[in-house]
């Protein structure tokens, strides 16, 4: 009888440890699949509402700008070089106009008048992007998200791609090392 009790207890402890292990591992699995990345929404120039989540698996450069901003034009030229240098499977650029006074028509006119032929994703901020990522209240502000949508880099002011654009300070950040580190 005593032996039976002991063996029953051992079996009981064994079963509990096995089940708790399973439970833990199943929890871990849920955690691994969980989307830990950031998200924001913006209105594309065609009127559709898009999310950062739509671009999971790619590095995303979020460019906060406005048509009246002179330094933003320098940034657009750097972004064009970046856009041409990386595959669309690896990187996307989203340029979001954060000035609520500006319109889709204004952006389209701006893009038609510039000879740079920027053909990446352009859109309008719905108010949430500038609030979340534009801490300094200045444009251009650049944010880089990794493939999982996690904010990896954020800076106000013009950044260069591989070289510092003429006329800018020597401590201007270059994006090539950051992007190469993420894309590999």
């Amino acid at each position, binding site marked *: 009888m005593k032996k039976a009790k002991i063996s029953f207890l051992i079996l009981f402890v064994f079963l509990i440890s096995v089940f708790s292990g399973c439970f833990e591992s199943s929890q871990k699995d849920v955690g691994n699949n969980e989307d830990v990345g950031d998200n924001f929404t913006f209105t594309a120039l065609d009127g559709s509402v898009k999310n950062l989540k739509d671009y999971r698996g790619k590095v995303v450069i979020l460019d906060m700008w*406005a048509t009246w901003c002179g330094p933003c034009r320098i940034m657009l030229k750097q972004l064009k070089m970046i856009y041409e240098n990386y595959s669309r499977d690896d990187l996307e650029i989203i340029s979001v106009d954060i000035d609520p006074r500006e319109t889709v028509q204004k952006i389209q006119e701006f893009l038609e008048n510039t000879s740079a032929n920027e053909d990446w994703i352009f859109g309008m901020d719905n108010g949430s992007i500038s609030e979340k990522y534009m801490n300094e*209240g200045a444009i251009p502000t650049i944010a880089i998200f990794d493939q999982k949508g996690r904010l990896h880099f954020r800076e106000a002011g013009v950044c260069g791609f591989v070289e510092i654009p003429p006329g800018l300070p020597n401590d201007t950040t270059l994006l090539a090392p950051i992007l190469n580190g993420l894309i590999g």
Partner: protein
Amino acid sequence: MKKILIAIIVILSFFASSLVVSAAPTYNITLDPSNPAPKSTITFTATVSGGTISKVYLVIKECKDNLCHIEGFNESMDKTPSGQYEKEITLNYSDTNNIEYYLVIKSDGIWYDFQDSKIQKDLNTASGNSNSNKTPGFELIVFVISIAILLFITRQKRVK
């Protein structure tokens, strides 16, 4: 025949008057002081012509070489007895080196936005010691004190 001619002239003049299109207003802005510094107070005076002007707004953005502050000014300008429009603005930021400004004018009931012909003005960043951590004159004080000590020591030696 004469009556027909008069009638034609009257009709033509009537149509011509209806064809008059209200032209976009034009403006000229002066700044006082003409060479302002960051965070300084500037008086903007605008002379606006063309149509019946009912409202004039002054839009200003403060920038430096590599960024622009999004928080700018969008202020209604006050009409002066002389017919000009005036506004006193105190710039917000110390880290800027230029401002961009333009007018938005309501003339004959139509709004005209002159953002595309905005004016850029470099700020006077050289004035004052605001950008310098050095203390001009301090070296001179040290020099004078050291000379005084030297004179005192040599005098003491001579006395001995």
